[in-house]
């Protein structure tokens, strides 16, 4: 006999504890709140932090969307969606506008999010100072003393060695002018989209047992030197081969036949939406 799982997998006590940590995180923007990360049916490092946030927040009427590196159909996203659906019975969707709760790994959806939505990001490495200081009690002290020379030093080293900041993803940000935060491995392209975001952004690191948050309408500033201003990835003159969108984050693929690089929307549901809306226009015009 199979026991019926509790709603949203967790017992109520666990949800309460995670929500309490979340509230604290929202109250102190960018501050990493430690929490008792639960054992999950997926392995740590596969999105358990995000999953725990999702499960503790989700209600019966909510609609869930899960993305993995911009894709709704990747194995990890589908598995997480299934787990949440089986234990809660909530509806899932691919459409950013329809979702109440969006759990994501490595991307912020292209469609702008609203104040009624919550974005949950999965975080492998919540500590932006870890590469310079291995000891947790030291990094905690550095945060408390507002000593972020280490985070700046890493960028300085990259500039000295490569002539530019070489952070492909996870470029550190100042939140609300106080805490330096790892924005999770989102591309630099998504950093400015955290700034004054309408939606609440929650970040969960299951393996590192930390929850932190960017409340709505909070200043998020990427670290940058005066003479090396922050720059997002540039896709100038390139557009999606499927939907033709420019000004979005594009993946570079190699065309197997020609060997030439081609570009495609990283956010699959956004791309699909563009295609559908175009098709709709085509259909309407051809019938008319």
């Amino acid at each position, binding site marked *: 006999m199979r026991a019926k799982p509790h709603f949203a997998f967790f017992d109520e006590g666990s949800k309460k504890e995670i929500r309490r940590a979340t509230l604290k995180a929202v109250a102190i923007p960018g501050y990493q709140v430690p929490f008792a990360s639960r054992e999950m049916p997926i392995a740590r490092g596969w999105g358990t932090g995000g999953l725990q946030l999702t499960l503790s927040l989700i209600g019966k009427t909510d609609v869930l969307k899960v993305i993995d590196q911009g894709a709704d159909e990747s194995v990890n996203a589908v598995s997480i969606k299934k787990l949440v659906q089986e234990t809660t019975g909530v509806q899932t969707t691919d459409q950013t506008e329809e979702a109440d709760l969006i759990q994501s790994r490595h991307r912020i959806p292209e469609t702008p999010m609203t104040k009624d939505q919550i974005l949950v990001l999965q975080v492998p490495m919540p500590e932006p100072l870890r590469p310079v200081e291995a000891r947790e009690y030291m990094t905690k002290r550095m945060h408390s003393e507002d000593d972020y020379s280490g985070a*700046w030093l890493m960028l300085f*080293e990259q500039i000295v060695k490569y002539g530019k900041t070489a952070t492909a993803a996870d470029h550190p940000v100042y939140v609300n002018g106080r805490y330096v935060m790892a924005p999770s491995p989102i591309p630099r392209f998504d950093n400015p989209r955290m700034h004054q975001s309408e939606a609440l952004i929650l970040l969960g690191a299951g393996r590192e047992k930390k929850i932190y948050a960017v409340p709505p309408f909070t200043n998020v500033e990427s670290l940058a030197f005066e003479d090396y201003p922050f720059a997002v990835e540039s896709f100038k003159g390139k557009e999606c081969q499927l939907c033709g969108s420019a000004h979005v984050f594009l993946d570079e693929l190699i065309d197997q036949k020609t060997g030439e690089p081609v570009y495609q929307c990283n956010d699959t549901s956004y791309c699909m939406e563009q295609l559908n809306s175009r098709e709709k226009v085509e259909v309407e015009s051809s019938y008319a």
Partner: protein
Amino acid sequence: MHEEPILKVRNLRKQFGPGCSQCTNLDSNRLEKNYCTVCGTVYAVRDVSLDVYPGEILGIVGESGSGKSTLMQCLYFDTDVSSGEAYINTPVLAGFNVFDLSSQQKRSIRNHDYGMVYQNPVHGLKMNFSSVGNIAEKLIAAGNRNVGNMETTSKRLLDNVHIPLHRMKEEPRNFSGGMQQRVQIAKALSNNPPILFLDEVTTGLDLSVQANVLDLIKRIQRELGISMIVVSHDLAVIRMLADRTIVMLNGEIIEQGLTDQVLEDPQHAYTQQLVYSLL
């Protein structure tokens, strides 16, 4: 002529252990060397008071375990003091006992007003960051956010301490001990601190490198007028560098005066022994 000391230390005490009724009144008779035989509390630094004047080099000598390094660590806020006061004579800090300030303020003093050169470069440098980066770290901590500016300053400093510029992007772990020490000195000097601490900087270096480093320190003092506290157990180093000298034994100052005076005409039995042991 009347001069105000740039660094004034009064009754600095550092003890390891809670102390007991036998030793809390600090009656030296009850202590064996610097620890209490009853409760085992170590009195590493006992009621040390000293003044450092602008542009002078103050030498501190003493045997191993006499409290020299602990004193330096206390002054540089690497460890907390048990009691005592220190005043730094800068416009912002005048009148404040710096030991009472918050850790954030202490960090700001370290970043702006202090430079430190440790005996072991591992403590003062980040071994897996480039030499330029190491120097920039101190500049960044002091609020500099301009890469070009910091690179220029770092290059000038590395040139000053005779590090070949083609190696400036290399990590200090690839350097010899003497080179590491010179990078550390460059780092300590990067934002022209009024006070520089040198803890056994030449210990473990061979003689020619030692001479190089000493030359450098002497030149820095002459050209930049930086006040320094030099800790060493090597009397030759002290004789060459220091204007005034303090002799420490078991956590206490037992003798102080002009360096020549202390070395030529030692008064305390221990100092006499120390001076006459010099080969």
